[in-house]
C-alpha cells in the first residue's frame, strides 16, 4: 500500500473525478415501473424455504413453479393451461416474452426471506415474487414487494393476517386461511365428536399459529366446546414432550395441534407416544385434531395420523379436470403426486401470467386491476363484497379472487388420516368438500380487520 503516495493535488483530482462520476446525469432505464422487462425474457422470482422446518413444502412448491414455467413457455403437456377457464395464455411465454426464473432460499426466516427477495428484485430483475411456506415470511415479503413495486403472489400462507390486517395492494393469496379451516372443520367435528368437548390447544408461536388458534377456538366454541388452555410453542421446537405431559392432567378430551410442517409431525408423534389417543377422559375417547393438514406432513407422521381430522386447500384425489391435468403432468415429471403447497404455487404462477396477458402489461397496477377482475361473482352468495375475478379449471372448482382483500374463495376440503393407506401418498382421505358458501366471510370480519390494501405501487426504475 505504500506505493500510493497521496499528494494534495492527486487527492483533489481523485475527489473531483469521483464527484463528477456521481454527479453525472444518470441514464435511467426507460421504464414506468420496477424491473420493466426490455429483452425477450421476463423473470419470475421463486422465494421458497429450502432449509428450516418447512423445507419439504418449499421444495415441492419449487417443483410446481418449474412445471408452471415449462407450461407457460409451451413445453411439456401444457398441464392445467388446457383446463383453465381463461384462454389468454397461448403457451408462448407471457406477452410474447419467454419466462425465466430465479430461486432463493427463505430459510423460513423473515430476515433471510427479505434479503433473498431483495436480491431477486435488485440483482436479477424479477418482475414478480412468489412463494413462502410460512405466514411470517409471507407477510414480511409481501410488505417488501409493496414497497419495491412488484407483485407478490403468496404461496403457502394460511394466517388470517396475510389478507387481513397485513394485506397489501400488490399482494395476492390463492391459498385458503385459518378462518376457512375453522368454518369447514367445526361441523365435521361436531358430527364426529359431539357438542360437549373440552379442547386443549398447542399453538405455533407466530402469526399463523395465533390466527389459526383464534379461528378454530371461535369455531369450536360456536358448536358448544369449551377451551381448557392454549399453550404457545416456539417454531423451532423439535421435542414437544414437555408440552404434551400437562395435557393429561388438564381434564381436556381433545388436543388441537395448531402446528404445521415438521412441527406438527413432531408434536403429533409425541402425543401418540404419550398414549393420548388410547385414553378415556370424561367418559369419552381422547381425540386429536390438526386444523391444517398437508400430504407431506401426513407422509412424515406415518401411522400416527390415522383417524385424525384436518383441512386442506386441495387434494390430488379430487376428480375435476383441472386437478387431473395438473396431477398428470406433475406425476409424469417427478414421479409422485403433488402436495397442496405445490398446487397453490402452480396456480399462483399461472394466475399471474394470465393476469399479465389479460392486462397487456407487466405493470403491477395493470396486474392488480386484472386480478381484481371485471365484477364477476360467486353464485349464491349475497354480499356486496362478492366481486372480483372468477375463474375455474385450476383444481378447486369455481374460484373468486375477491377484490376487497385479494383473497381467493373456493371450496375447502376436510380430510382424515386414512386407516391402512395403500402407499405413502395415500395417507389422507377426503371426508367432505365444504362449499365456499359455508367458509365465506365479510372483509370486515373482526379476525381480518385492522389493515387496508392501500394503493397499488408500480415502483420506479
Amino acid at each position, binding site marked *: 500500500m505504500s506505493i500510493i503516495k497521496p499528494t494534495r493535488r492527486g487527492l483533489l483530482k481523485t475527489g473531483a473525478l469521483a464527484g463528477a462520476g456521481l454527479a453525472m446525469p444518470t441514464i435511467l432505464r426507460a421504464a414506468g415501473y420496477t424491473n420493466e422487462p426490455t429483452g425477450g425474457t421476463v423473470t419470475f422470482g421463486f422465494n421458497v424455504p429450502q432449509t428450516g422446518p418447512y423445507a419439504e413444502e418449499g421444495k415441492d412448491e419449487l417443483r410446481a413453479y418449474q412445471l408452471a414455467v415449462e407450461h407457460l413457455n409451451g413445453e411439456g403437456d401444457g398441464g392445467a393451461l388446457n383446463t383453465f377457464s381463461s384462454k389468454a395464455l397461448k403457451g408462448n411465454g407471457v406477452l410474447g416474452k419467454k419466462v425465466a426464473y430465479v430461486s432463493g432460499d427463505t430459510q423460513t426466516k423473515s430476515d433471510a426471506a427479505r434479503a433473498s427477495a*431483495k436480491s431477486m428484485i435488485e440483482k436479477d430483475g424479477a418482475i414478480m415474487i412468489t412463494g413462502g411456506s410460512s405466514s411470517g415470511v409471507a407477510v414480511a415479503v409481501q410488505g417488501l414487494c409493496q414497497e419495491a413495486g412488484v407483485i407478490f403472489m403468496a404461496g403457502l400462507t394460511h394466517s388470517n393476517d396475510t389478507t387481513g390486517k397485513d394485506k397489501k395492494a400488490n399482494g395476492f393469496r390463492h391459498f385458503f386461511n385459518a378462518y376457512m379451516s375453522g368454518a369447514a372443520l367445526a361441523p365435521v367435528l361436531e358430527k364426529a365428536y359431539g357438542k360437549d368437548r373440552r379442547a386443549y390447544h398447542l399453538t405455533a*408461536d407466530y402469526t399463523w399459529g395465533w390466527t389459526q388458534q383464534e379461528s378454530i377456538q371461535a369455531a369450536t366454541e360456536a358448536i358448544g366446546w369449551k377451551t381448557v388452555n392454549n399453550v404457545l410453542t416456539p417454531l423451532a421446537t423439535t421435542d414437544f414432550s414437555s408440552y404434551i405431559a400437562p395435557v393429561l392432567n388438564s381434564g381436556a378430551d381433545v388436543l388441537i395441534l395448531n402446528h404445521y410442517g415438521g412441527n406438527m409431525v413432531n408434536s403429533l408423534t409425541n402425543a401418540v407416544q404419550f398414549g393420548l389417543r388410547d385414553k378415556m377422559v370424561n367418559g369419552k375417547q381422547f381425540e386429536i385434531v390438526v386444523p391444517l393438514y398437508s400430504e407431506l406432513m401426513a407422509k412424515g407422521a406415518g401411522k400416527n395420523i390415522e383417524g385424525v381430522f384436518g383441512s386442506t386447500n386441495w387434494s390430488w384425489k379430487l376428480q375435476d379436470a383441472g386437478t387431473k391435468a395438473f396431477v398428470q403432468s406433475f406425476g409424469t415429471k417427478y414421479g409422485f403426486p403433488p402436495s397442496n403447497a405445490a398446487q397453490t404455487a402452480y396456480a399462483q404462477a399461472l394466475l399471474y401470467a394470465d393476469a399479465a396477458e389479460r392486462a397487456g402489461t407487466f405493470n403491477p397496477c395493470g396486474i392488480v386491476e386484472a386480478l381484481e377482475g371485471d365484477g364477476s361473482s360467486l353464485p349464491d352468495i349475497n354480499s356486496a363484497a362478492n366481486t372480483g375475478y372468477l375463474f375455474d379449471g385450476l383444481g378447486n372448482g369455481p374460484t373468486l379472487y375477491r377484490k376487497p382483500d385479494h383473497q381467493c374463495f373456493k371450496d375447502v376440503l376436510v380430510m382424515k388420516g386414512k386407516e391402512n393407506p395403500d402407499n405413502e401418498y395415500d395417507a389422507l382421505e377426503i371426508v367432505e368438500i365444504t362449499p365456499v358458501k359455508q367458509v365465506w366471510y365479510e372483509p370486515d370480519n373482526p379476525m381480518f380487520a385492522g389493515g*387496508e390494501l392501500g394503493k397499488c405501487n408500480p415502483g420506479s426504475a
Partner: protein
Amino acid sequence: MLGLDKRDTLLLIIVSVLAILGPFILNPFPSNSALAQFNAGYPDLMQRFVIFGILAIGFNILFGLTGYLSFGHAAFLGVGSYSAVWMFKLLSMNILPAIILAVVVAAVFSVVIGYISLRRSGIYFSILTLAFAQMSYNLAYSVLTPITNGETGLQVYTDDPQYLMGPNSSTVTNLFGLEMRTTHSLDLGGWEFHFNVGYYFCVVMLLLTFYLSVRIFRSPFGLMLKAIKTNQTRLNYTGINTRPYALTAFVISGAYAGLAGGLLAAMDPLAGPERMQWTASGEVVIMTILGGAGTLIGPVLGAGAIKYLENIFSKINENVLQDWFSFLPHDVQEVVVWIFARFTGEGWHLTLGLMFMLVIIFLPGGLVEGSQRIMRLVGIGKAKGKSSGQGEDDEHHPKATPHVAE
C-alpha cells in the same frame, strides 16, 4: 490530517475511495455476461457489506484491543433494530431519530450486560455473553411478543400512530425527505451500476465509525485496552483497575452494533428475532477473525467476504452449475456438478468453513496478513504491518494472549 498520522490518513483515504467507488468495484462484469452471477453491486448487498463492516469494526474494538471474546454481539444488533423500527412506528419514517435511539438503547443495554459479564474473563466471559444473547433472543421470540411481534418480526403498519408524520410525509425510510431506496442506475456499455442513497448514507456512517475506531486504536485509552489484552493480571498488580476500561470498550462496541442494527432497519424497516440468534453472534466473530482481529481494516474485509459468500455463492444452485458444465460429457458433468453443488448453493457454509480453517491455520492474521504477504512477495513495499495497527516492531512487544486462551 484530522489528528491522524500519515499512515492512518492513507488508510482512511483508501477505505473512503473503496467505499465510494463500491458500485463500480462490485460490478466488474457486464450484466449480460455469464459472469454477472458474481456481481455483488446491487443496493441491498452493498448496504449489507457496509453495515456488517460497521458491526465488525465495533466488535474489533472489544475483541481486537482487549481480547475479550463476546459471543453476544447479535443481541445489541437486534436491540438496535427493534428500537429503530419502534421509532418508525411511533414518530415518522425519518431515520435520524431511529438511528439515535438504536445507538442509545444498545449502549444502555450493553452497560447492563457488560457490567455483569465483565466480572469474569476468558471463556466464562464468552459464555456469559452467549447466555445473555440467547436470553434476549428467546425474550424477543416469545416472551416479549407485544414489543417484538415474535417470529413474524416487527413491521410498520399504516395504522401505527406515527405522531410526526405529516400528510405529505414519505412512507418509506428517509432522511428529511431523501428516500433511502432511491437508486440511480447508470448504463455504460454492457455494464450497469447502481448508486443507492441508502448505501451512501451507510458509507458516511462507516467512514465516521472507522475514523473513530482509528482514533481509539491510537489513543492512550486504546493503549490501555491493548495492555489489558497483553497482561491484565500485571495491570491489576500495578494497582490499575482495568474493569472500567474494559466496560467502556464493551459499551462502545455495543453502541457500534446498535448503530449497525439501526442502519439495517433504516434500509429495510423490519426487525426479526433471528437477528439475535447465537449463530448471528458467531458470524461476527468469524468475520473479525477471518479479516484479521486487531487490525483496523480486517473486520471490514471479513464482513465483506462472508456476506459475499452468503448472498452470491448461495445463489449458485444445481441448475446454474449444470449450465456451466454443459460442455462436458453427460456423465462427467453429473459428477462435477454433484461435487461443486456441495460447496455452492445451500452448501456455502461448507465453503466458508474451509476458508475459515485455511485462514486460521495458514494466515493467523486473517485476510490482512494474506494481502501483506502477497505484497511482500511481489516486492511492493518492504513494509509489514502497515495497516495492521500492531506497530512496526511487534517482535519486541510481549505476545498478546487473548482471554479466551487462558
